[in-house]
C-alpha cells in the first residue's frame, strides 16, 4: 500500500541520455495519490522511457526517481501496467481468461495456482464486462475486448499506481470510452494513473494534469495551462497553434501534437535530437 505522505511518483532533477542524445533532463515533478496524469509528446520524446524508468527497467542518467517513496524496482507489486493493443495469432492457445490470469500469478514459479485463483479471475473478467468472451482465444478478441482484458489483468495485482502505454491506440470511439471509463473508475478508488498517449481528446475529461515532453524539454500543469499555443511553441521552438473545437483540442504545427489534424512535418527540436 502507499505509504501516507509519500507521493506515488516523484522525479527530482531526472534525466535520461542515450549516448549523446538527451531524452529529457531536469525533470522534477510529483504525482499525487489518485491523480490522473497524461504524458504527451511526439514520437521519440521519451514518453515510454518514462514508464520504463518507473518500472525499474531503465536507470536514470542523472537525478532521482521514487515510486511510493522508494527507488523503482522490477516487478513491483505496487504497479499495474497496461500496454497498447497488439495482434495475437488466432491459433495461439491462450484464452481471454488465461491472459487475465497472468496478472494474478503469471510471474510466480510453478505449474498450478491456488483454488481461489479461478474465482478471482472470474471476478476480474466480470468487472470489465468480459465474461461473455472469457473462454475465447485471445487472438479472436477485438482490440477493445483485448484492452478490457488488459485492464482486468493489471487490476488483479491490486496496484496503487497504474502505468498505461498508449492503451487506446487503434480502438474505435466506443471502445475508447469503455476502456477509459474502466481506468478512471479505478482511479476514483485511489489508484494513481500515469497515462502515455498522443491523443488527449478521448481522456481530456478525466485528466488532472498533463506532462508534455518535446526534444529534451518539458512542461507540466493542468490541460488548459499546458495545451496552449504559447507553451507548445516554447517547447517545440517552432510556431505551434492550439485550437479549441468544441470540447476538443487540436494542435496544429508539429508532426504529432496532442490532437489530431496536425500537419506532417518534423519540428526542428526532434531532428536535432
Amino acid at each position, binding site marked *: 500500500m502507499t505509504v501516507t505522505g509519500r507521493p506515488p511518483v516523484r522525479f527530482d532533477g531526472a534525466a535520461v541520455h542515450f549516448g549523446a542524445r538527451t531524452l529529457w533532463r531536469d525533470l522534477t515533478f510529483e504525482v499525487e495519490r489518485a491523480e490522473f496524469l497524461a504524458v504527451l509528446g511526439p514520437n521519440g520524446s521519451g514518453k515510454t522511457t518514462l514508464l520504463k524508468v518507473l*518500472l525499474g*527497467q531503465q536507470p536514470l542518467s542523472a537525478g532521482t526517481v521514487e515510486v511510493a517513496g522508494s527507488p523503482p524496482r*522490477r*516487478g*513491483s507489486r505496487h*504497479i499495474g*501496467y497496461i*500496454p497498447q493493443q497488439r495482434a*495475437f495469432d488466432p*491459433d*495461439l*492457445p*491462450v*484464452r481471454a481468461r*488465461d*491472459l487475465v490470469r*497472468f*496478472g494474478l*500469478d*503469471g*510471474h*510466480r*514459479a*510453478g*505449474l498450478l*495456482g491456488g483454488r481461489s485463483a479461478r474465482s478471482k479471475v472470474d471476478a476480474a473478467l466480470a468487472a470489465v464486462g468480459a*465474461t*461473455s*468472451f472469457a*473462454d*475465447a*482465444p485471445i487472438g*479472436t478478441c477485438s482490440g477493445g475486448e483485448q484492452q478490457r482484458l*488488459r485492464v482486468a*489483468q493489471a487490476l488483479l*495485482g491490486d496496484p496503487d499506481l497504474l*502505468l498505461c502505454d498508449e492503451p487506446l491506440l487503434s480502438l474505435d470511439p466506443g471502445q475508447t470510452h469503455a476502456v477509459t471509463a474502466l481506468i478512471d473508475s479505478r482511479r476514483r478508488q485511489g489508484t494513481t494513473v500515469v497515462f502515455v498517449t498522443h491523443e488527449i481528446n478521448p481522456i481530456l475529461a478525466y485528466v488532472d494534469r498533463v506532462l508534455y515532453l518535446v526534444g529534451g524539454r518539458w512542461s507540466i500543469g493542468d490541460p488548459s495551462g499546458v495545451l496552449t499555443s504559447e507553451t507548445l511553441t516554447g517547447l517545440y521552438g517552432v510556431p505551434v497553434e492550439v485550437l479549441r473545437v468544441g470540447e476538443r483540442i487540436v494542435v496544429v504545427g508539429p508532426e504529432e501534437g496532442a490532437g489530431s489534424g496536425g500537419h506532417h512535418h518534423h519540428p526542428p527540436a526532434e531532428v536535432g535530437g
Partner: protein
Amino acid sequence: MGLGDYLSLPFAQHALLAGGLVAVTCGLIGPFVITRNMAFAVHGTAELAFTGAAAGLLVSDNPVAGALIGSVVVAALIAALSSRQRDRDSSIGVVLAAGLGLGVLLLGYYHGFATQATNILFGNLFGVSTGQILLLVVIAVAAMVCLAVVYRPLLFASVDPEVAAARGVPVRVLGLVFLLILALTVTEAAQVVGTLLVLSLAITPAASAQRLATSPLGVAILSVVFAVLSADGGLLASLQASKVKPSVLVAAISFAIYLLARLAGPMAKQRARRSRAGADG
C-alpha cells in the same frame, strides 16, 4: 517372437521407458517452440547432436554423453551470438554450419564403427547401452522438473513478453533457460528418432494439439499424449516390423495424428466459437 516376448526383454523395456520420458519432455516443450517461433533452433540443435556424438565417440567412446554435452555448448553459443531476438535464426545457421563441418572432421579421425555416429542421424534407441539409457532418463527427468518450475513465467514471457517484463518476470534469463532445456531435450529426442526426424516429436505433436485445444493446459496435455503415442507406438511397431527403422514409424504415427487433428480441428474450434456466440446472445 511376439510383442509380449519382446516386452519381457530388458532392452525393450529400457528403450520404451527412455523413449516415453523423452517424448513427455518433447511434448511439453513443443507448444513453447511454436509460440516462441523456435522451430529452426530445434532443427539446428538436433543436427549438431551429430557433432557432439562424433566428439563423444572420439574422446570416450560415448556418443550419447558427447551429444548431450555438445548440446549445452551449442545452446551457449547460440545465446552468446544472438544478443537480439531477430539475430537468432542467423546465429543458429552460423553455429549449425560450423558445427556440422567440425562433426565431419571429427568423424574422419574416428576409426571404430561409423554406424555408432550415423546412428544419431536416424535414431536407434534399441542399440544404446544400459548406462546411456540411464543417462537419457536422468536428463529427461531433470528437464521435466526444470520445465515444471519455470512453466508459468515462461508461458507469460512467451505469450506476452512486454507485460511479463513489466511484472518483473526475468524474460531474458527464462529465454536462456528454455534454450538450454530445448537443446538437451532435442538431443535426447535425436536418440529416439534421429536428428533428421526430431521435429516429429518436438513440433508435430504440439501442432496437432493446437488444432484441438484452446487453453495452454489442454494443449500441453494433448501434446504430451501425442508425443508419447508416437514415440512408444513407433518403438513397439518396429519390434514387429523389424525391417523398418523405429524413427520412420515414430514419424509416421506423429504425422498421422497431425492429419487427424487437421480434420477434427475445425469441428473443435467451431464448437468453441458457437459457445462464445451462445454466451454473447
